[in-house]
């Protein structure tokens, strides 16, 4: 491979080779790198399937017998979904094809014209829906078991045992079920069906659609046991209205919403009011809803009142519901509206009990986590601490400790577990006693195997609980050392499954009994490897990483440490050039975007589809140091803090005599683009800059309407990523001091700006503004405006490839003095334009 790289480098610097030739060689080199990705473990732990993911394709699936490591049992050339059946079989489907492979005999059955496929693992069968609307169910030997023609829409599957199918027959729509007993008609409805959904308990099918040519929308709930139907029929505002049904307590009752979206005004004049709390509607329109309650088996749907509150949500209780306002009082200091006025609605008494406000802690919207029993709800009224509500006793209490996230109920609804940066904490709901579990105190912990079920669309009102009689699988992070481990917590016993490792542990897959686990582990000098781990800790390597990337182990990295002005410990990751010689000096590219040191154990392949403008692997192969310093926003504001962090990181690495401090470039995209813009106006330590999709005028941005996240943008400054923690009015001078455009005249090195003209997040005219500011001050600047680019450039797009090439040429020009680049010379050489 080293030879290949040399050829590529040679071509890149040779002026005699056409640009297209250089590009082809580069692409050819890149296309050979791959990584293992997306492992799938069979339920019995006998098999693992893993994808070979190349830069722009991933159509090779490797299947490994876990009893015969390091041997590929089968290779399947098909991108798509992977499902193991019960007895050593695998079904793969995607791209209009399907393959069923008997892993013992190696027999492969191939299907074309496939819409989708269904593994019926419990039955030892599989279904294939083909373009001619025929659903064929095959036995595992490939013989046809059953066939249903005139299938409408997409069948739905339950527990890998049954398939529910809609079949049109003379303007009636039959609901069929294919199961162990064969195919039978469950029921039929007269309305067309646009949506078929099996609710999670499997007790009801929800089918909905419009009567032909009318705005009459119908929802029919079908009892999957006896075929009994109950229909709700309404006149919709438009044919885009839709029903959404969620279960209460595993199918005891159901909550139903009918949603309409009213399009934004589009008349002669659009009037904006200062007291409007739904400014998102100016772009997205207004969503309204009507809501019903249906008790399983009853003949009636009971509509919730909307006289006091316009919206009603399930709390997984058959009696108590959340009544709330969608946007009332939204002050746009947060992206999403918070619930500032809520009540519990008692469906039996038809009464409301005030509950107060709810705010999000981790998520942008308020989070309400409900117990499986339907009795308890956890939420936050201040966005920091959690409160526990007892719906039955009409009581609540506060947990007087901040820093908890993602509460999870035990399956018996008696305890709540909280993730935190200080281990997992357990609350006894009845006694209100909160204790840290023995699991990994002082470390950041996530609960991996919680079951989530959304109770309300477009929201974070969920039931979240642990599976019954199973240990809790925990992912534990040591953020200081960037280590990861996995443990099982059962009662007070903690069993470490994967000890702390410096490797990045990508996917962890596990069987339902948490006996067998498989992981992909990687590092900056190691491509992802597939491992199998048993609960007893026994571990084996199933598949080595990329066989092509032999030289990855030669890569060299160093982690530097420094502190912010506020004393926060920060790190920088320094990658060494390949074939580094201590007797040479090398140029360096510095990339900034908030905290990056957590990426120190990421495996990088050369690719157009890496982060826009940054391909670490190619840069080190081409003789650059690459530095990723952490930056944080401190009291001084986002720009000045980033400048301080970058200066400290540069001070640290300047001890390295192999870095040519006269040849250092700075690059950033998005928030990193803003940081780059700012640093360019305040630093003389860089020889060149590249800034992509970066804000140049934070005050104009603060007072803008953002069309990506529709609404006033000041939330991002006061309470979001920019982290000013003050309004413009409260601290004008800090906004002024951190605004790049106000110091455009101080830029002391050439800068390449780029933006996508479809970027509604950081609008492209922020780039234009900086360009104009620099031009006015006669600074060397080139701006690239990609007509079809968004905030980032499209995957594998020509724009992405163009930027990639230009970025490499920009660094070579200014950091290596390779000045034979016509498009740069037009700016840099007098008279060349």
């Amino acid at each position, binding site marked *: 491979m080293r030879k290949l790289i040399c050829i590529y480098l040679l071509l890149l610097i040779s002026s005699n080779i056409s640009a297209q030739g250089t590009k082809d060689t580069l692409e050819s080199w890149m296309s050979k790198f791959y990584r293992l990705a*997306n492992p799938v473990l069979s339920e019995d732990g006998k098999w693992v399937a893993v994808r070979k*993911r190349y830069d*722009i394709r991933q159509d090779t699936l490797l299947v490994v017998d876990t009893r015969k490591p390091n041997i590929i049992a089968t290779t399947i050339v098909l*991108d798509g979904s992977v499902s193991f059946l019960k007895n050593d079989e695998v079904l793969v489907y995607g791209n209009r094809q399907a393959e069923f492979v008997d892993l013992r005999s190696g027999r492969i059955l191939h299907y074309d014209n496939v*819409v*989708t496929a269904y593994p019926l693992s419990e039955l030892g069968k599989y279904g294939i829906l083909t373009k001619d609307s025929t659903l064929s169910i095959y036995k595992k030997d490939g013989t046809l078991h059953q066939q249903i023609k005139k299938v409408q829409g*997409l069948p739905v599957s339950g527990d890998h045992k049954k398939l529910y199918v809609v079949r049109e027959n003379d303007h009636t729509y039959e609901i069929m079920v294919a199961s162990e007993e064969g195919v039978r008609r469950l029921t039929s409805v007269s309305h067309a069906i646009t*949506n078929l959904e099996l609710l999670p308990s499997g007790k009801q099918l929800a089918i909905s659609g419009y009567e032909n040519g009318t705005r009459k929308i119908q929802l029919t709930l079908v009892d999957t046991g006896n075929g009994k139907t109950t229909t709700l029929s309404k006149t919709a505002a438009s044919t885009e209205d*839709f029903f959404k049904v969620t279960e209460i307590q595993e199918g005891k009752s159901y909550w139903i919403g009918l949603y309409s*979206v009213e399009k934004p005004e589009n008349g002669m004049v659009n009037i904006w009011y200062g007291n409007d709390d739904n400014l998102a509607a100016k772009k*997205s329109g207004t*969503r309204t809803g009507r809501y019903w309650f249906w008790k399983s088996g009853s003949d009636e749907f009971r509509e919730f009142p909307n006289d006091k509150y316009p919206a009603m949500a399930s709390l997984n209780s058959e009696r108590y519901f959340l009544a709330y306002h969608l946007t009332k009082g939204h002050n746009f200091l947060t*992206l999403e509206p918070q619930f500032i006025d809520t009540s519990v609605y008692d469906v039996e008494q038809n009464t409301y009990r005030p509950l107060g406000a709810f705010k999000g802690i*981790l*998520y*942008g919207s308020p989070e309400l986590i409900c117990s499986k029993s339907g009795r308890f709800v956890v939420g936050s009224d201040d966005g920091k601490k959690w409160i526990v509500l007892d719906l039955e006793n009409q009581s609540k*209490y*506060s*947990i*007087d*400790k*901040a*820093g908890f996230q993602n509460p999870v109920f035990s399956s018996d609804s008696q305890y709540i577990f909280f993730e*935190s*940066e*200080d281990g997992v904490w357990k*609350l006894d709901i009845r*006694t*209100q*006693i*909160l*204790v*840290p579990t023995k699991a990994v105190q*002082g470390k*950041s912990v996530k609960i991996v195997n919680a079951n989530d079920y959304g109770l309300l*669309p*477009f929201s*974070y009102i969920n039931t979240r609980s642990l599976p019954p009689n199973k240990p809790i699988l925990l992912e534990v992070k040591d*953020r*200081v050392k960037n280590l990861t481990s996995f443990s099982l917590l059962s009662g007070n016993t903690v069993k470490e499954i994967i000890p702390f490792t410096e490797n990045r542990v990508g*996917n962890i897959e596990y069987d339902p009994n948490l006996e067998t686990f498989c992981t992909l582990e990687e590092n900056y000098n190691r491509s992802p490897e597939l491992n199998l781990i048993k609960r007893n800790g026994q571990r084996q390597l199933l598949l080595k990483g990329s066989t092509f990337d032999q030289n990855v182990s030669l890569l060299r990295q160093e982690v530097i440490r420094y502190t912010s002005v506020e004393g*926060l*410990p920060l790190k920088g990751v320094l990658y060494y050039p390949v074939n580094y010689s201590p007797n040479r000096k090398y140029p360096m590219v510095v990339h900034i975007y*908030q*905290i990056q040191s957590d990426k120190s154990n990421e495996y990088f392949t050369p690719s157009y*589809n890496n982060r826009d403008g940054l391909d670490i692997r190619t840069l080190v192969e081409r003789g650059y140091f690459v530095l990723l310093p952490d930056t*944080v*926003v401190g009291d001084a504001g986002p720009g000045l803090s980033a400048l301080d962090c970058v200066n400290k990181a540069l001070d640290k690495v300047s001890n390295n005599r192999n870095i040519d401090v006269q040849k250092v470039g700075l690059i950033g*995209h*998005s*928030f*990193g683009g803003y940081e780059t813009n700012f640093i360019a106006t305040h630093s003389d330590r860089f020889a060149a800059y590249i800034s992509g*999709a970066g804000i140049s005028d934070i005050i104009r941005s603060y007072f803008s309407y953002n069309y*990506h*996240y529709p609404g006033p943008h000041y939330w991002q400054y006061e309470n*979001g*990523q920019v*982290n000013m923690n003050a309004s413009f009015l409260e601290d004008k001078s800090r906004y002024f001091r951190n605004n790049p455009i106000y110091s455009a005249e101080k830029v002391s090195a050439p800068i390449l700006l780029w933006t996508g003209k479809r970027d509604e997040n950081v609008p492209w005219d922020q780039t234009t503004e900086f360009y104009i500011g620099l031009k006015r001050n006669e600074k060397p600047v080139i701006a690239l405006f990609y007509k079809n680019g968004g*905030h980032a450039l499209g*995957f594998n797009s020509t724009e992405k490839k163009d930027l990639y090439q230009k970025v490499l040429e920009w660094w070579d020009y200014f950091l290596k003095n390779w000045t034979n680049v016509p498009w740069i010379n037009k700016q840099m050489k007098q008279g060349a334009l």
Partner: protein
Amino acid sequence: MKKLILPAALVLMGAGAAFATKMNSGKRVIVDGYRIDAVSGQCVDAEQKCSTNLGLPCTWSEDPSVTLHEAPVTPTMCGNELFKP
């Protein structure tokens, strides 16, 4: 050693000191990522977390060419594009 058991209301901020030392990577707002399912045409939950912070696109772990979006506006239309958490 006696087990530490404190009523919720009595747990004070002492242990909060541990939180204060954590690395602050800027404020993050986490959201669920959705994608258009190629077969059904429906906007479905990708079962992945994304962010509303400015940055790189949040892509589907199963296929990095697919960008994830906010919750659906209608069953067949996902919301705005999201960014890496």
